[in-house]
């Protein structure tokens, strides 16, 4: 039985949790002080030993990623924090940066020391202006207190941190598109190799990490790799934010060790909203194949969710009850992917264009007999054929939804989804009367 493990969210209920004073009063920046006295190579080893895996979705070991940087050649090396959180359902980094920005900034400072970076960037999605202001204020506070800027903590180490607001494009969450966008170019993914570790920002060695990954680093440094590794499962260590949204009684952020089950989390959140039952859910945002009630006891770590046919990804648990039309839900997701397709490669640009039209006619009950197989075939011609992972992400919900709910798609040949699933009944926040 897992319980909550608030680390990053521990501070969130403190008055003015985002202030430097609040953060420092809870032993904030102790990790940075310790890091300043530690050999950078040892910091990397520490993060490796902790078992921290990238919290942005892919789950790549963070310390290993840092160790891929080539040996210093005297030129600049960069840390870029990917704060372009845009995945439908994913909502962990933005509250984290709102409530506890200094955990990220301390993580940025420690990581910079570890990889020899003197100018770090936080690439934030452009729409969240309130978070942008908060980050700017936090960077200013940290700089004034000597945690950033020239001569960090009197050690002679210089570190500039730039918070950059993007212009609102899902593709810029793809790390190489993010780098192009940060350089002032059109945000489209780059050809790899070279990988960012070799030639990233301004063609220099660059580490790109997710907000939560970097914010987890101070705890590892101040409390030790063993402390971090004591949480979680064998290959999925540590704590993570689980974002429950949709048809749950108490949606929100639940920070728990990896390896907790969805059933446990759902219980903590008060279960599915009153009088309703679970129909399907996503383990990590709309890009992960949907799961159903039969997967309630799946252990939420990278391996187990993978074995269940989905991905842990960003732990964005979207909960849908029986009032939800799967066809409508997938249709809205595809609208998103079609709108956000950057256009660089054919399958993503044209495939989502096509999927969108098929799904809209199925939702309207105007589908034709071949449309379901066509959906699967089009999705199959996107998946694994696109330039970056965004094309795969668009194919995923279509394929998994048809896998579990093919009959609902078949109803789309004759009956509009809004007749089968009145949308008023489905709305999560219009009160109990509907």
């Amino acid at each position, binding site marked *: 039985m897992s319980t909550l493990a608030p680390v990053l969210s521990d501070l969130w209920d403190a008055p003015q949790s985002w202030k430097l004073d609040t953060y420092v009063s809870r032993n904030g920046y102790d990790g940075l002080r310790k890091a300043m006295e530690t050999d950078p190579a040892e910091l990397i080893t520490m993060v490796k030993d902790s078992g921290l895996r990238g919290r942005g979705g892919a789950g790549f070991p963070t310390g290993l990623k840092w160790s891929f940087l080539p040996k210093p050649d005297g030129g600049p090396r960069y840390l870029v924090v990917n704060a372009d959180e845009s995945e439908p359902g994913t909502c962990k980094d933005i509250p984290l940066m709102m409530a506890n920005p200094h955990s990220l900034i301390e993580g940025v400072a420690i990581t910079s020391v570890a990889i020899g970076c003197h100018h770090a960037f936080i690439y934030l999605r452009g729409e969240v202006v309130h978070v942008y202001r908060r980050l700017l204020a936090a960077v200013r506070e940290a700089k004034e207190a000597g945690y950033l800027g020239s001569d960090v903590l009197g050690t002679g180490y210089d570190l500039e941190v730039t918070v950059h607001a993007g212009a609102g494009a899902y593709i810029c969450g793809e790390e190489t598109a993010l780098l192009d966008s940060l350089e002032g170019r059109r945000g489209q993914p780059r050809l790899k190799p070279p990988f960012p570790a070799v030639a990233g920002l301004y063609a220099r060695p660059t580490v790109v990490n997710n907000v939560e990954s970097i914010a987890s680093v101070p705890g590892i440094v101040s409390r030790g790799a063993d402390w971090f590794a004591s949480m979680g499962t064998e290959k999925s260590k540590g704590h993570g934010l689980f974002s429950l949204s949709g048809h749950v009684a108490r949606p929100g952020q639940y920070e728990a060790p990896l390896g907790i089950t969805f059933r446990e989390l759902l219980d903590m959140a008060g279960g599915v909203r009153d009088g309703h039952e679970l129909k399907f859910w996503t383990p990590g945002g709309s890009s992960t194949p949907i799961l159903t009630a039969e997967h309630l006891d799946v252990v939420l770590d990278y391996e187990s969710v993978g074995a269940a046919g989905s991905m842990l990804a960003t732990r964005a648990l979207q909960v849908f009850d029986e009032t939800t039309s799967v066809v409508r839900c997938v249709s809205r997701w595809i609208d998103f992917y079609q709108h956000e397709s950057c256009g660089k490669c*054919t399958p993503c640009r044209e495939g*989502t264009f096509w999927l969108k039209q098929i799904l809209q006619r199925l939702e309207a009950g105007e589908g034709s007999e071949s449309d379901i197989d066509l959906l699967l075939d089009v999705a199959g011609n996107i998946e694994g054929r*696109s330039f970056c992972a965004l094309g795969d992400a668009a194919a995923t919900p279509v394929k998994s939804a048809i896998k579990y709910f093919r009959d609902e798609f078949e109803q789309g040949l004759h009956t509009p989804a809004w007749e089968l699933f009145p949308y008023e009944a489905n709305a999560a926040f219009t009160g109990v009367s509907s």
Partner: protein
Amino acid sequence: MTATTSTASDTVTKPEEVTLTIDGVEVSVPKGTLVIRAAEQIGVQIPRFCDHPLLKPAGACRQCLVEVAAPDREGNVRPMPKPQASCTLEVMPGMQVSTQHSSEVAEKAQRGQIEFLLINHPLDCPVCDKGGECPLQNQALSNGSGTSRFTGIKRTFPKPIKISTQVLLDRDRCILCQRCTRFSDEIAGDPFIDLQGRGGGTPGSDEHGLPAQQIGRFDEAILGFAGGEQAPDGDTVGPGGEPSLAAGTGESTPTLGEAALDASGRPFASYFSGNTIQICPVGALTSAAYRFRSRPFDLVSSPSIAEHDACGSAIRIDHRRDVVLRRLAGDDPAVNEEWITDKDRFAHPWQSAPDRLTSPLVRDEESGELVPTSWSEAVHLAAQALTGAHGRVGVLPGGRLTVEDAYAWSKFARVVLGTNDIDFRARAHSAEEADFLAHRVAGSTMDVTFGDLERAGEVLLVGLEPEEEAGTIFLRLRKGVLAGGVHVSSIAPLTTRGASKMRADVLHTVPGAEAVVLTGLAEGATEAGGVELGDLAERLRGGVILAGERLATVPGGFTALQRLAEASGARVAWVPRRAGDRGAVEVGLLPGLLPGARPVSDAQARVDVAAAWGVESLPDTPGRDLTAMLEAARDGDLGALLVGGVHLDDLPDPALAEAALAAVGTVVQLEVRRSAVTEHADVVLPVAPPTHKAGTFLTWEGRPRAFAAVFDDASLSDGRVLDMIARAADVDLGARSLDGLYAELAEFSGWDGERAGAPQVSPGSGHEPGSMAPGTAVLATWRLQLDSARGQDGEPHLAGTQRRPVAHLSAATAAEVGVAEGQTLRVGGPAGSIDLPASIVAMPDRVVWLPQHSPGSSVHRMLGTAAPGVVDLSVPTSEVQR
């Protein structure tokens, strides 16, 4: 499709080979080869759109997906989980590739991609220029499905967009492969077109005001942004008869300033834009000149060589029923790779212009008018007049001849006319230049090649703006610069756009002081004539110096160049502007030079040549150069002028030429089209344009570029016409057939006697702008690639893409004259003045640059002076009042 072999034909070290199997066939290719190219080696064509061998891999269209298995660290061959784009994947030892021929996954993946490309592609192939030669059409048939499963709404756009007066864009046909944008960025370096918008868009409406990803020029109106109003252009219409949209004419355009605009008022785009049309794998980019004119399968294609500069670019001439419809870049890795300038591509109508001469003309004694006559009469009259003035005929063949024709001119002058008064240079020239050509250029072959430029280490340009005067050199240098194989420095008065794109260090030099700078470099100085040289002298060791023909205007220029070449060991190449110039040097179209680098002044050389020509002796005194001939003709010292392709406006003193032509007893002209010379001619003999004759141009490298006649009709080459005149004068010139000419020419290779001496002119110090009177300036000028040249006549769409003529001057000079940016500056000379908008740039004070022969700025004729003369600067009264 395109060439796939590496351009480095002269690679010394053999690169490491990698062995892999493709469809079960083992193949070894150099390390770093892409899988798609390796497959070509065994004859497997993987379908592709975005891939182009001369552009960087993009991986955008995903058409070339294949299945791949590769050995892991332990050597176990493991299949990759997804199909891989073969255009971005480098070969690995032991890799196993399965293409559409052996893998169902690859076949299905490719079929899926082509289906995706077609869902939004219009089925307008029957009216599309590309239909019949379209990679999308071809590959849809070879690798796609016969029917479409798409029943929805297609993406449409208003069309076409005129992105320049020459290049039109139909966005609905575009498959977004980005070949055109990558060419503009990687090869030409022009901000011509780029991607805009995002994703596939929404049919019928644009949600959130977000346009679908498309190619364009960031025109506010076309993108539907604030501040833009769509500018219809009725010159070209869309499918429903609605006018096309002119791009690049948005609100912000006028703020760019005149210097950044083209003749049509758009931001100046590119001298190489036509290449984007050729590499477009669909019919999205078309040219105004060719659009809807023909079907590819109705055309006959003839390989040829471009006639507009000394680069000898390979071209393909597509024609139908004796009419040239278009020209395309040929594929020659050693010369122009697969690119040509817009001039080489579009400037072909001159060869069939309405003023083309079709029959011989003679001046009627009574009326004084030129009247058509028979060949026999015209030849007889020409022979009579020319032989009547034996030894007193000036010969001006011009610089556009093939080697074969030039040789006939050279022999004709010596054997029939008994004179060395012959000079191909129809432009500013000097005796020092002739000495340099005789000493260093004649007889030298391929000392420096296009390929060498890419890896030269350091290239110094003097008197040469490659983007304007030799476009193919520009592209090679830029390629080498971007690849890190060469660095470019340039001795020039200002940093041009082309120099910036080559990242050149420009040594800002007052015109006329180039010799001082070259001398400084020869002496290893770090400063000369007020110009910082840095460590350039050091870097030039083992490098290359490219000297343009304009160095002839600088006293001591070629002498200093020769000194620098000796001091630095740098190789030197002379880069003239015209296609026939280099060949003319080789066959002795100079007053002091006989064919094969033999000096006129060398008795043995004369005996040699006389023996080859079967005559007793040759005239032994070096002749007059062009200016001296014109002066002699004006003063009555010459009895006749025999004139070839000479345009008076090109000459350093057009007024002198007019006077000479008016004064001289007889003028015999061999020309393709009527010209200003025709007004003075007594006998006019029409000669064939390049499409109507076979021949050879020599590139600036000395590389022979032979081409065959495209059209076979009664047109006669210069050689044949001269042969007829010679026969009328009882001399056998042996120029009736090319075979005869080749046999004779071969005899002149390998002169082992003394070469002509090196030029010996001490460098003039040039003008001292500091001590010149305020309101005066030293004139700098050169030709732009697209200008008022007669070779560009008849192509208004091309003319619209010319740069706007402006006068460049420094801020201090502008202040001294009282002219502001964009205001009219009046530049005055002895013959008159030129008014152009002032463009203030970084350049030496009291120097003004004008385009040499652009609309409103024909420097030699309008000013009566040439660079580096001194001109007056003022602001016209009307401008002051404004």
